[in-house]
């Protein structure tokens, strides 16, 4: 097919753009996880914050991605042209799924287990690290997984503000009215999303089994 011909001919560029794309997504996901997981834990401890934090994250989520990139450009430090702006925007988008899942995962831990833990004199910190986080790691990772897949998609739009990534091909193809070039960006992006989904799914299962989260009843 012509698309694959194009990709093979330009494999160096495809590879470079894919790496850029991956970098955008990885960095922003790490940032989002570092912010959203502790924040989610905080929300389970400070119920009053919950409405505000989830509300803010919800609002961010509703801003169209292209508009968010546009908004960020004039902001000093965070914004400007280039991948820094893109990382900020992607991080903002990833906050909500991770935040919501962290909160839901921790609140979803069996109440009897929590009561037993408290009744036996676990401190709040011990309960968090030994009980709540291990038991909710599967749900939290599911949030990270959703956020990652979403940001692989949104990251293509980051090319519009000069952040690079596979979106470069898509915008170039749109400008040239050339489907092959569009697909040369879209196909690797789709593969990246599928790969990230599968990889994180595997990790989720591994950790889940390790911490007993997905432990299924076995005949003994």
């Amino acid at each position, binding site marked *: 097919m012509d698309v694959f011909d194009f990709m093979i001919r330009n494999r160096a560029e495809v590879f470079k753009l894919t790496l850029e794309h991956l970098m955008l997504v990885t960095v922003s996901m790490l940032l989002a996880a570092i912010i959203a997981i502790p924040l989610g834990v905080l929300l389970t401890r400070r119920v009053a914050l919950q409405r505000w934090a989830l509300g803010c994250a919800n609002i961010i989520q509703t801003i169209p991605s292209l508009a968010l990139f546009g908004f960020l450009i004039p902001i000093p430090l965070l914004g400007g042209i280039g991948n820094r702006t893109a990382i900020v925007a992607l991080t903002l988008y990833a906050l909500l799924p991770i935040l919501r899942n962290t909160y839901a995962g921790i609140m979803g831990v*069996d109440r009897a287990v929590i009561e037993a833990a408290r*009744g*036996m004199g*676990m*401190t709040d910190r011990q309960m*968090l690290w*030994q009980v709540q986080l291990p038991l909710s790691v599967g749900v939290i990772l599911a949030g990270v997984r959703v956020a990652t897949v979403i940001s692989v998609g949104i990251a293509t739009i980051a090319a519009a503000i000069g952040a690079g990534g596979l979106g470069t091909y898509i915008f170039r193809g749109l400008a040239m009215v050339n489907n092959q070039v569009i697909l040369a960006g879209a196909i690797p992006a789709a593969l990246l999303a599928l790969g990230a989904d599968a990889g994180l799914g595997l990790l989720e299962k591994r950790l889940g089994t390790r911490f*007993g989260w997905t*432990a299924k*009843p076995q005949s003994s």
Partner: protein
Amino acid sequence: MFIGLTEKSALLAKQISIPPERAAQPKSLTRRPPAPKRLKPRGGYRRSAASQQRNCFPNGDVAAYERRPQVRPGFLRVDANRPGSAGEKRAVIEFRSVSFHLDNGRRLIQDLNLTVLEGETLVLLGQSGSGKTTTLKLINRLLEPTSGEVLVKSCATTAWDPIRLRRGIGYVIQEIGLFPHFTVARNVGLVPALEGWEPERLRARVEELLLLVSLEPKEFGSRYPHELSGGQRQRVGVARALAADPPILLMDEPFGALDPVTRAELRREFQLLKQRLNKTIVFVTHEVREALALASRIALLDEGRLVGVYPPEEFVRARQPEIKAFLSAVDEWELDPIS
């Protein structure tokens, strides 16, 4: 995690010894550690002057506890002079005019006065919603009284560091609440592990406990809770509560979710167990037969009020309508297997 921080600072503050002249200063200057905010009822809790004046050694000063004067018989408001209840025994848990209301104003416990003596098994009996579980949770400070006070080892629960208080009290609940991601051995050894026991001592203790509840340590120690039957799980729950050898044991319908045969079996074993262990036990149930079989005394609760406290043999003869209602239900349960 953030509450953890305040608790840590509370522990630190407790370690700082307060000289007597400072202790006499107003409350705000004596660095009384702040109670964790989450546990506090909306209106705050009142502490009576009496409990502040009394010497409290809640944090492990056992020697001071042993030295303290014996409870005067007249002090026991509940049937201290009745036959069958040893008036000279020490009160381990006392409820003094305790009320507990929910934030929405619903009254779960009203003006409860109750004393649990050392080494006895007090059964809290009552229908669903009569406040049995609430009463139990007031003892280990999972709840704090709206008014009045609960004394454990003659210190108000609100004066105790909740963590220290709870580690000294075994707690068994109906849903058991075993940690699904821990093996049976780790579940049982949880409190000793939190207390920082050495691995060797911990392992020996876990083995001892599993044998105590008739589970073969080699076979069951490495299993996960989901690999156990309901009866086995509850045994593990009991073993876990006994792990750090707490003098007090709270049991909230521990055999409630089991089938009648397993239930009777566990009850029989528990009867033997409690003779061997000599613990002060508060046992919640809605089943009269269980109460009659296990209790040294039965406290009947009805809609958050204490109807009365009776030794089992008196309970059968008592004439209050609430008790009669309960006893008439027994006849319908004739087929329930019991030891």
